[in-house]
């Protein structure tokens, strides 16, 4: 217990005090202070979450207002939130260590004090959001998460695109949060008020949805829309490809790796306890949206030529995978006892993919960041040939690319494989979802062939940069995440040990898991994966020795005595799959329709906030909104109390 308390205190203290302390610092100091403390805090959060997952217990914390004797803020670290904390802290650890090197490029250009403040708070707020257990805590930290991340997105004040992307991000997600707030307020009014815990709420929700399905579903839908906007589910996705690339790369890693996972925590939390029929319906809704998301997101990623934008679109696609599997896990139990085991597999797959995505996507953002760090460019049409200069970055990028592509034996393969296993053989539309996911996995692969080869292979088309490997902290983070990619792929049981407690916590009968053939097959796969990788390694080392022994000379291209501009022969990123995109343009037409819906929505939200922003600076706007929120909360509280 003392250990828990200690860890919690370390995490909170190290994420708040240095953040506040570094406000006046401009450069180096802020950098080292915040990144060191954030790393330690993440590590302690990591240990904490692992401990909780091991014991399978929940931890409750209250913040009381002494006078009213009210539990104003309630937190509970359940195994589920511990799992999310684990994901966040894993990525935050890598991102913080990486950041110590990366933000050096802002020295003298940007004011790092504010970055430090927001960065530390952002990590803390994410952890607190997934730990919050009553409405007021949830709302406050949810909003703070938006605010801090919004500041980080538009951190580079000099870049108009960054400022605009941050603004758009803020507007869109704020409007989403409004939907959320409305539903929460409705719930709050209907129950004990803002201090109502989630336990109460879920109970109430269940009752409401059975007695009055219309209102119940409406409230739930509002809540879901709020979450989906934050998770960038199609058609609410179009803020993400603008926002994520503009942030500093280590923050992009956090945004894509963790922040868009936070809504999924609440989806699991709210949808799981629903009555079976509604669970089934909502499961289908979620699964369908997930499939649409993964198809649209990934196919759009295929045509991107900006490295980070490509990754951002893939984040949308991969969240689609997670949500699709989540939906499947909600749908399957309804189909019969035979499928309960499959449902658990789907649930495991969903969380497994979530963990994997956090790892490889943040790694990918870090590698893209390393490229930016050395070349200052994100343009896949121009970059190239960096593999020679940045071997570590290239190798880790290759591992991450193969992981997200789901190539065995890396981690993406295991989770995707679980998704297909749980969906494809079921005689429901889920099978089509699974098949589409399998197809999209191929698209992801090709997309990352492009990402990897354009950055690191061939010769640079236009930018000929003499460059070198990134500094040690950045390398370390990349290697750390790459190791996780391999480890989670080869030893799937590692991940299962962290996921199964959450399943037990949610009341899933892990009994099925133990006896069902699936878990055996997962174990079986573990063995096979080891066999596979052993063969890989054996053959590759063997062949490497042969190949490197017979080193041939490399001749330059030759045109009857003329020199050739061979670097122009490299395909620019836009040229890779143009024909495929042309032939399968129907998908893009459909995607465009969805996008235009999203665009209309975001234009609307922009319009709403445009007027506000005309008069206010962004920082002032943030304060204003916090004040408004707080007032609203207090007013409502008073109303209730009165």
């Amino acid at each position: 217990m003392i250990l828990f308390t200690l860890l919690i205190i370390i995490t909170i203290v190290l994420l708040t005090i240095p953040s506040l302390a570094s406000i006046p610092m401009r450069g180096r100091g802020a950098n080292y202070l915040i990144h060191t403390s954030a790393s330690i805090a993440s590590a302690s959060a990591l240990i904490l979450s692992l401990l909780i997952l091991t014991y399978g217990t929940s931890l409750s914390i209250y913040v009381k207002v002494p006078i009213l004797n009210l539990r104003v803020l309630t937190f509970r670290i359940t195994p589920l939130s511990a799992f999310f904390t684990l994901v966040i802290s894993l990525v935050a650890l890598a991102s913080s260590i990486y950041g110590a090197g990366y933000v050096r490029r802002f020295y003298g250009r940007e004011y790092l004090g504010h970055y430090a403040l927001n960065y530390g708070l952002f990590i803390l707020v994410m952890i607190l959001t997934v730990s919050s257990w009553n409405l007021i805590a949830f709302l406050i930290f949810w909003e703070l998460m938006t605010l801090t991340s919004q500041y980080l997105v538009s951190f580079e004040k000099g870049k108009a695109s960054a400022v605009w992307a941050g603004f758009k991000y803020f507007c869109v997600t704020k409007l989403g949060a409004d939907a959320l707030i409305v539903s929460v307020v409705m719930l709050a009014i209907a129950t004990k008020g803002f201090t109502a815990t989630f336990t109460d709420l879920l109970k109430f929700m269940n009752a409401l949805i059975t007695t009055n399905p219309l209102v119940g579903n409406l409230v739930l839908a509002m809540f879901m829309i709020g979450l989906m906007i934050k998770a960038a589910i199609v058609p609410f996705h179009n803020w993400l490809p603008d926002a994520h690339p503009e942030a500093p790369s280590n923050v992009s890693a956090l945004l894509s790796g963790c922040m868009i996972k936070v809504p999924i925590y609440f989806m699991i939390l709210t949808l799981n306890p629903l009555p079976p029929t509604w669970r089934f319906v909502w499961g289908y809704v979620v699964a369908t949206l997930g499939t649409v998301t993964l198809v649209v997101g990934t196919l759009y990623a295929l045509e991107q030529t900006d490295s980070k934008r490509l990754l951002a679109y893939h984040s949308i696609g991969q969240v689609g995978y997670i949500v699709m599997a989540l939906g499947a896990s909600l749908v399957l139990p309804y189909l019969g006892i035979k499928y309960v085991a499959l449902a658990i597999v789907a649930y495991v797959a969903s969380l497994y993919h979530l963990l994997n995505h956090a790892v490889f996507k943040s790694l990918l953002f870090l590698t893209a960041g390393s490229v930016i760090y050395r070349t200052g460019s994100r343009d896949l049409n121009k970059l190239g040939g960096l593999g020679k200069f940045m071997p570590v970055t290239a190798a880790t990028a290759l591992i991450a690319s193969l992981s997200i592509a789901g190539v065995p034996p890396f981690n993406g393969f295991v989770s995707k494989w679980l998704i297909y296993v749980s969906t494809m053989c079921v005689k429901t539309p889920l099978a089509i979802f699974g098949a589409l996911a399998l197809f999209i996995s191929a698209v992801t692969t090709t997309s990352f062939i492009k990402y990897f080869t354009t950055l690191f292979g061939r010769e640079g088309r236009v930018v000929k940069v003499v460059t070198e490997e990134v500094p040690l902290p950045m390398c370390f983070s990349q290697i750390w995440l790459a190791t996780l990619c391999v480890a989670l792929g080869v030893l799937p049981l590692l991940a299962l040990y962290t996921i199964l407690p959450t399943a037990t916590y949610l009341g899933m009968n892990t009994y099925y898991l133990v006896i069902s053939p699936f878990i055996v097959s997962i174990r079986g796969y573990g063995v096979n994966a080891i066999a596979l990788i052993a063969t890989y390694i054996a053959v590759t080392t063997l062949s490497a020795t042969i190949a490197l022994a017979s080193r041939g000379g490399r001749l330059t291209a030759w045109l009857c005595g003329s020199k050739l501009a061979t670097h122009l022969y490299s395909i620019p990123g836009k040229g890779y799959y143009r024909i495929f995109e042309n032939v399968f343009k129907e998908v893009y037409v459909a995607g465009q329709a969805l996008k235009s819906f999203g665009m209309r929505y975001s234009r609307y939200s922009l319009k709403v906030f445009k007027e506000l922003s005309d008069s206010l600076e962004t920082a002032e706007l943030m304060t204003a909104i916090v004040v408004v929120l707080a007032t609203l909360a207090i007013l409502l509280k008073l109303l209730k109390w009165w």
Partner: protein
Amino acid sequence: MMDAAPLLNVLIKYWLPFIAINVVIPALLAPLLDGIERRVRARIQCRRGPPILQTWYDLVKLFRKGAVTGGPIIFRLAPYIAFTVSILTLSLIPTLLNASLSFLGDTIVFMYLLAVPSVIISIGSIYTGSPLASVGSCREVSLWMAYELVFALSVATLAIDRSSLLLRNILPPYPPLHPSTILAIAIIAFLTYAEGGRLPYEIPEAEPELAGGIVLEYGGAELGLVKYALLVKRITLSTLLIDLILPRTWLTSILRSKMWFLGIGQVVVSATYISLLVILSITYSAIEALYGRLRLDQALSVLKKSVIIAGVAVLAALMGY
């Protein structure tokens, strides 16, 4: 006198030798089948054609040559990885004998492993920066995406029908043969033809257009491995099709009940398998000889149409047909 049955049981229990046979013999057979195919194509073109063993001679010649280029490591390693993986793929399906590494969801693993060689070689080829090799690789993976969609839908059809993703369960005997199953098998038959890089779809290599395209930069032993990997991939695909239509267990059991002596059923099944392989090779190469090369966009349009057919198959399977 030793009883044969316990020996057999022991062997079945330790099926690894069986799998080894299953992997090695088709792998050795693959260049031979290519020799037959070359001969058949030559005959349709009114040519005499090379000896059946020619592909083996070619491969041996290539293996004895050193590499010409010293490219980046990933480029040099790609052929080795591709070849290993293509061999590994063979271990997942029953070939000569009715034995395979079997575990749940092995169908998916099979599909993935089938794709790894072309993915890794594409990465290696684009990595070199050679324009024609890059264009060839892009064509390869573009086609592969489309194949994967069709393949995934057909596999889903079969999986829905049998409620399983275990390859063993997807293979015959089929209790009632649904129309959707037949459609899916037909689509897979088409895919085994197209994915083998045969003529209207031999777009990534396209010798007159790209001078070898995806394999352009490889030479010597590495080229030999890449070519061998393709041959093994072809035989794997043919085997998949044969497995889908050849009721092995049924045949074995019938023969076991009729013939008392050891292993005759297995021998018959193996013989059937090999003769089906040869028949398939002859048919495929005859078809190949009668087609010109499609452009990538035309090929993708054809595949788009087959996506629709595969979609119909899935829907039919969902409705229970």
